[in-house]
């Protein structure tokens, strides 16, 4: 029956990942004691570069071969012949050998490789939180033990004021197991995409708060009675995510484990039972009641299909505001070109509206970073591996190389730092030099995912469209990022307990949030909803998280 099992497309992704994680735990249990030993890697110095410091070109003292996991995007299929790998080899003496994983199931394959002990040394494209599953098994290395070998990392964490956020990466043993991509500036990627022209003409300007947005939506609805002007193509998750910040709570994509810091009480509280959460739900229910929300988009369950439908309705003047990124805005704009004609509309991303909690947006964020597979620790070139990764991920020249290629060959740099792509090269993903024959990304391998992770503000602006830069400036000048939630790392046994408790709680919250908003459940039943959560063991879960928080605070 093996063949049948393999082709069963209904195979639950969650079961699969849990299964892999559990099996990995068993398989790697023997290694867990290793990570706690004292660190002495001074003898593993093959290829080690003497005197390596921040902002310096790394070059291994002898040729090295390092293995790297590579996520293969369908629109930029990786080629081993890409110039980027040659250039890296030339500059650093490091040859990267790749293991390809298809983007569609990258996370599952990565878990499998790590659990089976078969992963390459360098595991990139790791978002914060994703490392937790591998910590207790000892399959990945505690990178905090080695940060003193990474001068660029230390320099930019300090320079960009990210020290507190790095502290938050620590697990219950006080170590962190991934090094993130550092962002000098961090703004919410997803916010409101508006039909700016309609909002200006009909809605009375670009709304700055949720109440202003509501007023504008009412006016638009009056002019276009068939429309449901506000939508979210991501099952409501994106909309609630940024809206919750303005209401002083967390929801949707940003709900996380549900815990948030209660400044007044000095401890963690559960977001969904707070008054702020109720206030937010009531606000959105009001919008739904007045026919201002495209409710279909909130419940579109087909993966990704929801946003495609929103794009269609955007094009037909049935939706005028929806969640999205700058890419989504371009997508809507293309769809509108088809129906209204180019130049007859204006679509753009605006900062998330403010609310009762002020003009607050989500906390600053890291971008994806890397983990190191624990078998690399015994390799003779371990020190050089760390130096290479420090250069690759955090050195400004390396970042520019990954993003733009070789200066003088692929791009030129003006005295003020402005970067211009040479005419012979295109960058289709950014609509640059579309007529050139060679694409910087598809043909040469620059500007692919590793280029995203660490970025100075200047580098970010070098490739952003004027609209992007405008959005970034608008958010930075008019919105305040929240302070990151204080860490409450759990121990191995607690992790399971917590996920057993938090998953059904989160399910209840998500289902009922939507029901309240859509009016399928009366808001008068709010107290009943809270007691339902309590019946699911909310109190003991909150206690567990608070005790973890106190333990961690006492330790550090």
């Amino acid at each position: 029956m093996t063949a049948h099992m393999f082709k069963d497309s209904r195979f639950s992704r969650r079961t699969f990942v849990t299964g892999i994680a559990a099996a990995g735990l068993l398989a790697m249990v023997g290694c867990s004691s290793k990570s706690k030993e004292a660190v002495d890697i001074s003898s593993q110095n093959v290829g080690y570069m003497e005197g390596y410091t921040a902002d310096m070109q790394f070059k291994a003292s002898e040729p090295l071969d390092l293995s790297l996991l590579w996520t293969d995007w369908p629109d930029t299929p990786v080629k081993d012949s890409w110039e980027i790998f040659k250039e890296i080899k030339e500059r650093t003496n490091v040859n990267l050998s790749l293991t390809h994983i298809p983007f569609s199931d990258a996370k599952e394959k990565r878990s499998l490789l790590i659990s089976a002990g078969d992963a390459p040394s360098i595991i990139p494209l790791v978002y914060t939180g994703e490392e937790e599953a591998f910590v207790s098994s000892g399959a990945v290395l505690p990178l905090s033990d080695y940060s003193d070998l990474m001068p660029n990392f230390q320099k930019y964490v300090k320079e960009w004021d990210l020290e507190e956020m790095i502290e938050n990466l620590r697990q219950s043993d006080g170590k962190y197991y991934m090094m993130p991509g550092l962002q000098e500036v961090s703004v919410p990627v997803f916010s409101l995409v508006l039909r700016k022209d309609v909002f200006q003409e009909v809605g009375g300007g670009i709304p700055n708060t949720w109440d202003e947005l509501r007023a504008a939506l009412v006016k638009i609805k009056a002019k276009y009675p068939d429309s449901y002007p506000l939508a979210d193509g991501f099952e409501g998750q994106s909309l609630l995510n940024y809206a919750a910040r303005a209401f002083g709570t967390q929801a949707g994509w940003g709900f996380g484990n549900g815990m948030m810091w209660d400044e007044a009480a000095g401890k963690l509280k559960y977001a969904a039972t707070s008054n702020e959460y109720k206030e937010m739900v009531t606000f959105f229910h009001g919008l739904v009641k007045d026919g201002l929300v495209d409710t279909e988009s909130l419940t579109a369950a087909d993966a990704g299909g929801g946003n495609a439908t929103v794009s269609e309705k955007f094009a037909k003047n049935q939706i005028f505001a929806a969640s999205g990124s700058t890419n989504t805005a371009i997508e809507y704009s293309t769809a509108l070109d088809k129906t209204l004609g180019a130049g007859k509309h204006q679509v753009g991303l605006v900062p998330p509206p403010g609310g009762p909690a002020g003009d607050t947006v989500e906390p600053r964020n890291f971008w994806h970073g890397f983990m190191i597979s624990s078998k690399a620790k015994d390799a003779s070139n371990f020190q050089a591996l760390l130096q290479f990764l420090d250069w690759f991920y955090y050195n400004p020249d390396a970042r520019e190389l990954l993003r733009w290629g070789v200066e003088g060959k692929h791009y030129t740099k003006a005295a003020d730092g402005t970067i211009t792509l040479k005419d012979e090269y295109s960058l289709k993903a950014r609509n640059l030099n579309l007529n050139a024959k060679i694409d910087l990304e598809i043909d040469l391998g620059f500007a692919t995912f590793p280029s995203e992770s660490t970025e100075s503000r200047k580098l970010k602006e070098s490739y952003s469209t004027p609209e992007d830069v405008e959005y970034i400036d608008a958010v930075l000048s008019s919105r305040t990022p929240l302070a990151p939630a204080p860490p409450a790392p759990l121990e191995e046994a607690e992790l399971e307990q917590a996920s057993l408790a938090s998953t059904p709680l989160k399910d209840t919250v998500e289902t009922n949030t939507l029901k309240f908003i859509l009016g399928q459940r009366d808001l008068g039943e709010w107290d009943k909803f809270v007691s339902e959560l309590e019946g699911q063991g909310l109190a003991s879960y909150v206690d567990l998280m608070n005790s973890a928080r106190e333990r961690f605070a006492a330790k550090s």
Partner: protein
Amino acid sequence: MVMQSERAQSAKPRRGSKARNSRDSAGYRVFTWLNSTILVILCLIMLYPFVTVLAQSFSSPGAIKAGLVSFWPVDFNIDTYIAVANNGMFWRNYGNTVVYTVVATIIAMILTTSFAYVLSKEHLRGRKVLIGIAIFTMFFNGGIVPNYVLISSLGMKNTMWALVIPGAISVFNLLVMKSFFENLPKDLEEAAQIDGLSWFGIFGRIVLPLSKAVIATMVLFYSVAFWNDWFAAFLYLDKSELFPVTLFLRNLLAGASSAATEGAAASGSTASALSANIQSVTMILTVLPILFVYPFVQRHFVSGIMLGSVKG
């Protein structure tokens, strides 16, 4: 007598024509109409998604995004077909799929028919144990990670064998074949035995030629399963030039849509949405071969699957 018989003869067709009349009756006609209408509607419902994908594959991405494409292509063009046809990796993966499917089906057919034939012999000692072992694997397996470790320590990782060997015997197909062989007349085999044929001779020269229908069905079952399989390749292959086209397609489809749902995390520029018509074109090109095989095998398919079902 003559008159009587004539009357009798003339009466017969009359009764017959009466029966025909009842078939032509209003009620029957309504039934036929309803029947065909419902079947046509059902047929259209099933065809609609396919036709839409076909129409999309000839349309411009902008028109698809704006939701203008349903039955007919909008902004007809074959640029995307040309673009996909020029994609080296697509054809490479396509070629892989053809090779994997052919090799896997041959191996699977050899193993399944010979195993099923052995199991169909009631005088075989330990027959029940062998069947039990096969059936056991229908319900229990080692799990993904142990399987993965096994395959990679056998040295099959990043080779075709990882896709071809583990799925070579589908127990369902095995049991269908076994019951088919059990229903072949024993006398035939006995006669062949008396004429001096060995067991291999009987199997190769008597049994197999009599089993064309079930073999055609099994070839279809196996080849469709291997053609569509992406999961084994996803697990055991680490180089994109070894991937089958289904994995290429999955990456194209699931990749683009999970970029949207997991947008919170992975909203980077590289996750830019692939144009919808590239997806359609790839889908069409991938299903075409199997689509063409079906009509030719269908005749055997219907008779083959029925053969095992009545025991007699």
